């Protein structure tokens, strides 16, 4: 059975494909802004795609805390699991 983290990782992969097809499998530990060079609009679009994939709404204060895709995955996994309990 796939874990929440697996589902989140797949959603991030699909979100990247939809929102930022020009990025070829980016390093998920790279900082989205300074390392990958994304601006706030690109990050917002990516997040919206991930939200659609997972059928969740991500509060903007959650986004303020994260710097990398793996941090995002970790935070979303926690958020989804907390909502289940």
């Amino acid at each position, binding site marked *: 059975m796939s874990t929440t983290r697996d589902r989140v990782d797949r959603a991030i992969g699909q979100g990247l494909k939809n929102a930022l097809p020009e990025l070829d499998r980016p390093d998920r530990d790279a900082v989205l802004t300074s390392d990958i060079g994304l*601006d*706030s*609009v690109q990050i*917002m679009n990516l997040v*919206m795609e991930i939200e659609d994939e997972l*059928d969740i*709404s991500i*509060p*903007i204060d959650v986004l303020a805390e994260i710097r990398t895709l793996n941090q995002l995955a970790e935070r979303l996994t926690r958020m989804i699991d907390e909502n289940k309990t």
Partner: protein
Amino acid sequence: MSIFKKFAAVAEARSELEGDGPSAIATPIDAVRSATRGVIGGREVLLAGTNNYMGLTFEPDLIKASQDALARSGSGTTGSRMANGSYDGHAALERELAAAYDWPSAIVFSTGYQANLGTLSGLAADGDFLLVDADSHASIYDGCRLSRAQTVVFRHNDPENLDRRLSRLGDEASRAIVVVEGLYSMLGDQPPLEAFVEVKKKHGAWLIVDEAHSFGVFGEHGLGLSEQAGVLDDVDFVVGTFSKSLAGIGGFCVSRHRELELLRLASRPYIFTASPSPAVIAGTRVALRKIIDGRSLRKQLHRNIDRLYAGARSLGFELGSDTPGPVAAIILPDRATALAHWKGLLASGVYANLMIPPATPAGLNLLRISMSAAHTDEDVDQILDGLGAMVSHQAPPDLVQSAR
């Protein structure tokens, strides 16, 4: 490490925009002669980059009322509405705003920015939800930050996306406040307000419409897009500003809910600032009457809007909005081209706005032209001639050069 290091990127972006002639950012306006004429770089120019949609800034009745109030009540209130800053004029303006909407309550704020900050942070608290359009003005985002509510962004002008997000909240949607604008000031586009109202009603949520750029412009009495769309009965709060069509400075929130009055006790941006000066309030009261009765002004404004949109399109320019409105945003491929067009238009005697990321949505580079009821047919012709010259020259090479 210097605390100023974080500004390096914006400082570099700004220096790239510098060059010969007046700066495109924070352009120094040497003098303002009328609602549509000013002096920039030593030359008189046509002003087509203001938010003076109704053209009331030099209205003699408005100036007289402001002068009288200045002489009668002094230059400033020197205090908060909660202390010594509530004069008869403030209360009268609030009554007049409420009466314009036929609603029981209105609150005046010291700026339009603070109207959003004060309304959102005052209304939404811990346990509530704010659902805001992705292209919202900074004052809406900042109001969300100042509140303790959980804030979620929905796709720009997408009621279906909002519907999904409200569905996820289930019963808690009754504690959700949806925020949309009547006109988005960068691209000049309008929301599908009727569809948003349907979604809001379906989930029992609340709706705020920020009519900052649409007040005065739309509706039989100029009350905004909500009036024009015929949905005022389903809008809970309208937020607006005095610094655009109302030709002053300040802001307001008006509501069908009498309990809006309670916000005066809870809204920090309302409480912890000085109230607007008597002269500003007196001028705004005159401007409000002129807007409510301003059918002929709106007729001229919309004539100008329709001519500008049609003319710009026939020249081949791509505009940010399909529906004509007071803002015509010409989308240009990159910053250098946008700057060259801005300079080109100024060289032809027309001041517009250069709008570039991060102020713009979707990373767009825009030449933003705004219309006023005070513009004449000849003024619109001059703007279109200026744009036409750039099409025929394909942005003169020397201008492109200096933009780099």
